[in-house]
């Protein structure tokens, strides 16, 4: 007699979820400004909300869990309206115990449900990190495929504005170092929609790193992206802006800064290619290396702490695979190696700014010191 555990859909294609391939997406994945006829705009908040709503509507096993997600409509209003629509069993307000509700989410996932667990910020996920790593990430491997964990851990990550050290750390590097997890970091509304849908449909545990300051930002969104079957593949980066002189890789909020930096650099005659990583694990080394082989220069940017960061991994990958193509040392821009200070002036100094990216790109092009 087969137990009730371990029932999963079979995914046929490697690396991509089958539902993505079935979607009517064009290969607008890699091209930069391919938003079709859309002059529609959508905030990241609405993008996330609509993604969760559509996935909950399509699959009754999906449910949302976290502090304040229900009656309060979500600490950042990401889950607004879901309680009214789906009821308290599927939009569950938890007591204050990250370790508790993460463990419960994992247990529910073991038993076949698809939880979307919200951390009020990923800083609080540290209280639950044993469950994320030891109970979720490693389970499929340790059980030899008998126990899979189709769970999504989502919430704001990285610095907000004036919230101090315990609310500002970026966890991309920590989670992306763990085999068994997939780690995604959206930037635009389209990223948010497509990646969250992919994450919810994915049978593996996914850490979904949002950014509080991006929630209110509006982005143009295409008709395709608004379709309910839309989803983006996990493991593919997006080239936001094509260029030929220097490659700038980054993720989340820093993509906006890198695009601004590219504008400034264009004024000085430097054509920068901006890559939005979208997926920290698996990292799209192919796209990054192909770009560096084209431009011969690399600037990697992230908000998080510099040591053992995402940028360090990208630099290592490029040096290993594209060493002979490099014309300049790789440049790394990361947050300052200090716990985030509160005072606004100090906070500004502790985070990468557009000027830092511009300077680094110029150094890589031997235009400045």
């Amino acid at each position: 007699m087969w137990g009730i555990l371990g029932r999963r859909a079979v995914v046929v294609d490697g690396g991509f979820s089958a539902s993505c391939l079935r979607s009517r997406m064009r290969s607008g994945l890699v091209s930069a400004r391919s938003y079709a006829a859309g002059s529609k705009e959508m905030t990241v908040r609405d993008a996330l909300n609509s993604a969760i709503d559509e996935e909950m509507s399509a699959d009754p096993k999906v449910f949302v869990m976290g502090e304040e997600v229900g009656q309060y409509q979500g600490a950042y209003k990401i889950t607004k309206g879901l309680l009214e629509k789906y009821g308290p069993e599927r939009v569950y307000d938890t007591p204050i115990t990250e370790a508790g509700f993460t463990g419960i989410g994992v247990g529910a996932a073991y038993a076949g449900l698809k939880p979307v667990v919200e951390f009020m910020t990923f800083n609080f996920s540290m209280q639950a990190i044993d469950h994320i790593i030891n109970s979720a990430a490693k389970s499929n491997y340790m059980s030899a495929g008998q126990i899979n964990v189709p769970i999504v851990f989502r919430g704001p990550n990285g610095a907000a504005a004036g919230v101090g050290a315990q609310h500002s750390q970026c966890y991309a590097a920590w989670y992306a170092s763990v085999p068994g997890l997939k780690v995604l970091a959206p930037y635009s509304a389209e990223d948010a929609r497509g990646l969250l849908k992919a994450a919810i449909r994915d049978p593996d545990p996914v850490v979904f790193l949002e950014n509080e300051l991006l929630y209110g930002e509006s982005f143009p969104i295409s008709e395709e992206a608004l379709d309910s079957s839309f989803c983006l593949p996990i493991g593919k980066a997006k080239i936001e802006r094509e260029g030929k002189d220097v490659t700038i890789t980054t993720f989340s909020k820093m993509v906006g800064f890198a695009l601004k930096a590219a504008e400034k650099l264009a004024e000085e005659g430097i054509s920068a290619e901006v890559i939005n990583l979208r997926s920290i694990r698996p990292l799209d080394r192919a796209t990054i290396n192909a770009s560096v082989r084209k431009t011969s220069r690399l600037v990697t940017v992230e908000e998080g702490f510099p040591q053992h960061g995402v940028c360090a991994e990208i630099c290592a990958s490029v040096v290993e695979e594209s060493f002979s193509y490099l014309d300049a040392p790789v440049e790394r821009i990361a947050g300052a190696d200090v716990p985030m200070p509160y005072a606004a002036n100090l906070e500004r100094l502790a985070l990468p700014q557009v000027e830092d990216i511009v300077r680094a790109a110029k150094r890589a092009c031997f235009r400045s010191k």
Partner: protein
Amino acid sequence: MAIWFARSRNLVSSLRQNLGLSAILIKRNYTSPRPVFTNYQLSSRVFLNPFTSFRHESTAVETQPDLVQQSDHEDDAQELDFPGGKVGYTSEMKFIPESSSRRIPCYRVLNEHGSIIPNSDHVPVSEKLAVRMYEQMATLQVMDHIFYEAQRQGRISFYLTSVGEEAINIASAAALSPEDVVLPQYREPGVLLWRGFTLEEFANQCFGNKADYGKGRQMPIHYGSNQHNYFTVSSPIATQLPQAAGVGYALKMEKKNACAVTFIGDGGTSEGDFHAGLNFAAVMEAPVVFICRNNGWAISTHISEQFRSDGIVVKGQAYGIRSIRVDGNDALAVYSAVRSAREMAVTEQRPVLIEMMTYRVGHHSTSDDSTKYREADEIQYWKMSRNPVNRFKKWVEDNGWWSEEDESKLRSSTRKQLLQAIQAAEKWEKQPLTELFNDVYDVKTKNLEEQEHGLKELVEKQPQDYPPGFHI
């Protein structure tokens, strides 16, 4: 004459006790965005709004003068609202003592001599079931002994016995249905044995060979089988408790006729996850049976250093969970208690806590020598005089269901089967290299494919660096 429903059961039951009323309770319906809790005593749901009109309350008080407890303190008659419901007042400053004068008694059915105590509550056990239970308890004993010896001989790297806890293992498994999902700690292989895991399958996991369902990924005793609804043993302590609440929640949402059953030791109840798991299961009204094996020791930490409460059973009420303390060395008591708890969990959709009192006769594991921190006499005493297997055996024998001949036949055939299983498991080849990279994700990601390819190439290029017969 009506009493309004108070959220605290204690208030109501103490009122009942003190006043000897079998009063009619009226439920009050207030709209609330979310139902908060169910009424245990009535079968209907009651919604409470913390901001009840005082007008109702004072009217109710006036019509029920008899309900006021006579006391020296004038204030004691009143009740006021706080978030969470009505609470009676007292102007007597009284601290609840840290422990009650009498410890919670332990439920048992069989006495130390293996006879059923007259008039004891218990679920009857048929001859067939009793014999099977005994056979499995004896099998577990032999299995533990032989695998322990195998580790001592260096044939497996690690082992952990359940000596002294055979009744908990087998009798609780016997009381569950096969659809109940078990989340073990690590000292419950008997549950898996009961459900049909063979001695060969146990051996294969310990040796991590090609036949191991765990594909050699886990150290010994980390068994798991989704076929048997038994979750893979996980090393971090108590993580299975909130997971069990989650499994219970999933079963509840899917309206299955099953509950989650999870085990924890006395030491594990100190973990934060114990608090989270029990609290949550109660709030979610999840069908979970929490079984705590209070065996007196957490490696070398005695329970007196683990907590200051009267064991674990008293913690249940703190979370609003029904609980019972059971003699864990009495197979019939364990069977009855788990059967009843399971029924309650499923039919009433609530968590239940069972504390099983027992003693860890063996060392914590093969990495431990418990004579370093406890008296050898103490261990001997529990092993010989308080042995759960012997106690149950006596009862089964007294019923004429088991003989010495059956005993020696079972023990020798089980021993033989185990030795053969170990010999076979040892010789069986290990997993192929491809299993190194499988199951990290549902579908291998590109970087893993590249790494696997790279490793294969390396092994082909440099075979001298790898053991002979190393296959890909």
